[in-house]
């Protein structure tokens, strides 16, 4: 599997070429370089997957973990060292496929979406950088390599969110994204440090005896690592950066903030799963509760958003929380006995990447058409954008959990896992799933149905109320629709992949079987959600919606403002850290510490001034001092010494 190195190398080379020489290249060439390299990477990834899974299981019934490359990058002390390498195991191979697929789609899509933008080359450079880092993250052979690439994806995310660097919101959003995740990474780092010290290695397969003897430290370390993962995966209350991150170009949102980077947290937990389940099941369950709460919170907030990308963002948060819950509800490594969640989570990760990527790309097409994110500028678009409409609908159905679309299968596994963990969790998550269906279709209806903004405007124009003729929404160019269609196809069929054969919590093959009760109930709930949404949002100015809105106005407003989490964070950062700590420290430094140093100088100056009278110019006082000096010295020497 030595060729896998080129999976990493190609995006990097592409990045370097574009970054160093990009500005001199024409747009098409630049985009071409990026896309071509990604296409090769995608092909290689598929080849890898085929070869890897095709090679079959080893004697122990597991897919072997292959490490084609592993070099010591930085030795640290006698035992510890940071390695850089490539490790192939089921989940990393799966992630390779996900990343390269979505990334390739996004690369192609961006040709159309970013056409003519200033900084087109830069954009592709950053995409390549991101892809490189993300791939590096998933194939990491050890936790520190993961951290290294973890930071790199963070920074590429920062750069891409701030792509429109003249936009105030984009700058703020990129900053926020980076700092929040960085804050979480701090815990990740400390977790790694604990882990490294007690496990004596950074690798994922530490010496069991060492771990066992470490006691409470390992759960703590894992918990800290999870906080890092929660930051990247936008778990409550570290989710605040993700909605804002939508300021970046939409394809970027699709790639980074829906399909790949945000699931890094899930991937991290999955990666550390054997240790979690062995040494820190309590932590795992805590993750489940956090995930459950996040899922609900995000779903509720999603119901109240008007910006379509925000809706998708909260939907992403909610869906990732599903994956977290799935991991968290695992009680053993055996998929048959409470270990199902692991597989479910990975499965959902896979399918979610596809349909959420699709949703975002679709949303991108819509935004491309109407030049706005706000739903008030949309409505009735199904006539104008048929391809987008259909693919979007498929994605919505997938996420809502309607068979036979992929989301149904993966979500069903999650719910099954939840029920097996505890019925309450199951019911709760089912409820959230229903809510998911509701808000997705709310979105769907608002965009594609209802009163067309364009038509209203057109009328106004014709009446002469407005001077400018509105742009007619138009279907996206082929570069954009092709990825939509491809992803829609994947979303349709991905559910039928026998996922459990490849990935499961203990590595042995696991046959996915639908739990009829769960499936039926979840389908029912989903349909109910869809119907409610259709009832309320299909037509404008529905009376029910108005009465609901009036009755729960406060709640809706609160949900719209994401329950004021951002304000809370803002308060902490601006008021407490900036104004409450940093300013006073700066003041303290300038006036107290520096002031003290200056005081030494001024004091000696002042003292120097005050003693000048001794040098009065009078020879007699000089001699008086002289004699006094003599006498005092003599007295001291004679009587005191």
């Amino acid at each position, binding site marked *: 599997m030595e060729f896998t190195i080129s999976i990493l190398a190609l995006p990097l080379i592409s990045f370097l070429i574009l970054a160093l020489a990009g500005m001199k290249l024409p747009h098409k060439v630049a985009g071409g370089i990026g896309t071509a390299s990604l296409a090769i990477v995608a092909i290689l990834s598929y080849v890898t997957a085929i070869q890897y899974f095709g090679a079959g299981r080893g004697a122990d019934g597991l897919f072997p973990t292959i490490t084609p490359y592993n070099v010591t990058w930085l030795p640290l002390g006698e035992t510890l060292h940071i390695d850089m390498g490539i490790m192939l195991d089921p989940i990393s191979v799966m992630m390779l496929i996900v990343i390269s697929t979505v990334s390739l789609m996004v690369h192609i899509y961006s040709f159309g979406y970013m056409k003519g933008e200033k900084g087109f080359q830069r954009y592709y450079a950053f995409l390549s950088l991101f892809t490189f880092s993300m791939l590096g993250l998933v194939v990491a052979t050890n936790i520190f390599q993961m951290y290294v690439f973890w930071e790199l994806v963070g920074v590429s995310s920062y750069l891409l969110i701030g792509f429109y660097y003249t936009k105030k919101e984009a700058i703020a959003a990129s900053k926020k994204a980076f700092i929040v995740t960085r804050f979480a990474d701090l815990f990740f780092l400390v977790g790694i440090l604990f882990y490294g010290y007690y496990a004596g290695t950074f690798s994922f397969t530490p010496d069991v005896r060492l771990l066992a003897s470490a006691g409470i430290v390992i759960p703590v370390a894992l918990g800290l690592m999870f906080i890092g993962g929660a930051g990247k995966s936008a778990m409550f209350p570290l989710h605040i950066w993700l909605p804002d991150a939508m300021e970046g170009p939409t394809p970027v949102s699709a790639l980074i903030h829906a399909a790949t980077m945000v699931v890094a947290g899930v991937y991290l937990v999955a990666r550390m799963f054997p240790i979690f389940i062995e040494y820190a099941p309590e932590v795992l369950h805590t993750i489940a509760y956090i995930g459950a709460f996040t899922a609900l919170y995000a779903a509720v907030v999603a119901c109240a958003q008007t910006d379509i990308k925000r809706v998708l963002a909260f939907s992403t948060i909610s869906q990732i929380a599903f994956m977290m819950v799935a991991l968290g509800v695992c009680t053993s490594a055996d998929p048959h006995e409470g270990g199902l969640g692991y597989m479910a989570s990975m499965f959902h990760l896979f399918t979610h990447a596809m349909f959420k990527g699709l949703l975002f790309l679709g949303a991108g097409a819509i935004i491309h058409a109407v030049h706005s994110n706000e739903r008030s500028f949309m409505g009735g678009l199904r006539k104008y954008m048929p391809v987008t409409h259909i693919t979007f609908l498929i994605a919505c159905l997938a996420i809502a959990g309607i068979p036979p679309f992929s989301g149904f299968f993966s979500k069903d596994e999650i719910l099954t896992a939840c029920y097996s963990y505890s019925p309450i969790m199951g019911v709760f998550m089912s409820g959230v799933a229903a809510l998911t269906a509701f808000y997705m279709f709310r979105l769907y209806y608002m965009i594609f149905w209802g009163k067309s903004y364009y038509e209203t405007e057109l009328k106004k124009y014709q009446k002469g109320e407005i001077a400018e003729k509105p742009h007619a929404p138009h279907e996206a160019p082929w570069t954009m629709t092709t990825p939509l269609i491809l992803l829609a196809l994947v979303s349709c069929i991905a559910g039928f992949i026998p996922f459990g054969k490849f990935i499961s919590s203990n590595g042995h093959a696991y046959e996915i079987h639908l739990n009829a009760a769960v499936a039926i109930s979840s389908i029912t709930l989903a349909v109910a959600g869809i119907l409610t949404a259709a009832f309320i949002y299909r037509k404008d100015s529905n009376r029910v919606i108005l009465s609901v809105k009036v009755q729960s106005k406060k709640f809706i407003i609160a949900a719209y403002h994401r329950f004021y989490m951002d304000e809370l964070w803002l308060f902490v950062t601006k008021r407490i850290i900036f104004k409450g700590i940093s300013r006073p420290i700066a003041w303290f430094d300038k006036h107290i510490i520096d002031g003290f140093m200056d005081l030494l*100088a001024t004091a*000696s*100056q002042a*003292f*120097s*001034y005050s*003693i*000048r009278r*001794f*040098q009065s*110019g009078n*020879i007699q*006082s*000089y*001699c008086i*001092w*002289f*004699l*006094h*000096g*003599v006498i005092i*010295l*003599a007295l*001291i*020497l*004679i009587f005191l*010494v």
Partner: protein
Amino acid sequence: MNYIQFLEMRPEISLLAIFVIIFTYDLIARGKWRHYFHPITCLLLMLHTGICMSESYREIDIFSGMYYTNSMIGILKTILTGGTVLLVLQANKWLRSANTTHKQGEFYTLLLSTLLGMYIMISARHFLLFFIGMELASLPLACLVAFDKYRHHSAEAGVKYILSSMFTSAVMLYGISFLYGTTGTLYFQEMTSGIDGSPLQIFALTLFFAGMGFKISLVPFHMWTADTYQGAPTVVSSYLSVISKGAAAFTLMTILIKVFAPMIEYWQIILYALTVLSITIANLFAIRQTDLKRFMAFSSISQAGYIMLAVIGGAKDGMSALVFYVLVYIFANLAVFGIIETIEHQTRSNVSRDDCNALYKTNPRLTLLMTLALFSLAGIPPFAGFFSKFFVFMSAFKAGFWILVFIALINTVISLYYYLLIVKAMYITPNETPIPTFNSSKYSRISCVICLAGIVLLGICSFVFEEIDRISFGM
């Protein structure tokens, strides 16, 4: 009546001979011959320096222990003479100015007599001879301080100097009288055995110390220094600050280790106190000064404090550190005073720090020399001052006075501050009308170059110090 012994005192005799030659020349030379006065004097003095140097490697004990010299003393005499040569070279312009030119002869004779006084003072092993030497070194100096007799400042400085000098020598004599009264002798050698640290002797020691402290200008016996330096002709201030001070410091050390050795714990306390006071108070005063000569006065008080660090251990390495310090200090201080002197010729009045503003623009070389000299005074490597300071600190530290060293070190920072103020004035402070570009006299330039060489090379070329260390002596 073994008068042949006089012939052994070759440096003194040679100096006296020059004294006579100059005196006679002054009487007879008229017209253009007076133009040659300065060069001839310089040549004679250089010749004399050579004689001193060649005579320095001899140990002589004549007049039954009244006069003693060895290589260290010989070298010190050479150093002092060399310094005087540099000083006379710098004085060229001043000596030829209209007010002074007819007094040239007196200047030289007085200067040489003070130098002779210092020779005697250094070599004396008897308090009477020492006292005469000291008076010989200071009374003509009073006349030199008041040399510009129609300048009010000079007159005032002269009277301050002579009165405080008289007062001090009286105080010191009083101390010597008690020493005599308690030990019964005035010979150093005999006196040591009589020193037993009785209170009266401690009192005498203090009085004696005060007298020496006056010459070296240690706080609180320093008060005359600033006024005198400021008022006196620059050459004389320069002479006072280096040659006179160096000789006195060395004498103090020899007397302390030769005579007062049994009372070491007492005089170490005195030195401790005086060093701390000198360095600190002088630094505090110096911060505020704007008149450069006055400023240099306080600087020299502070430097005297550092010299005392070498004395305090009373050991051999202290002695070598002291002599080396004096040597380096002569070069650096003479350079500074030489520059003040040349600038003074442009400003026609006392030089203040503001006069130096932006001097670099017009006189870069002079400024550079001044900077280096100031750095050397402040103890900045790689200039010689750094080495001399380091050796002094080492000797004091070795003697166990590490808190004292610490205080002195902290004070180097303050001293750096005020030296840098001048550097700042010369380089940084903007000035629309800096002193225009000028050329100093040939002689003064020679002297400056020698000073520069001294400042730069003395530290790096270790043989000078090693040689001094080889011949130095201690308790």
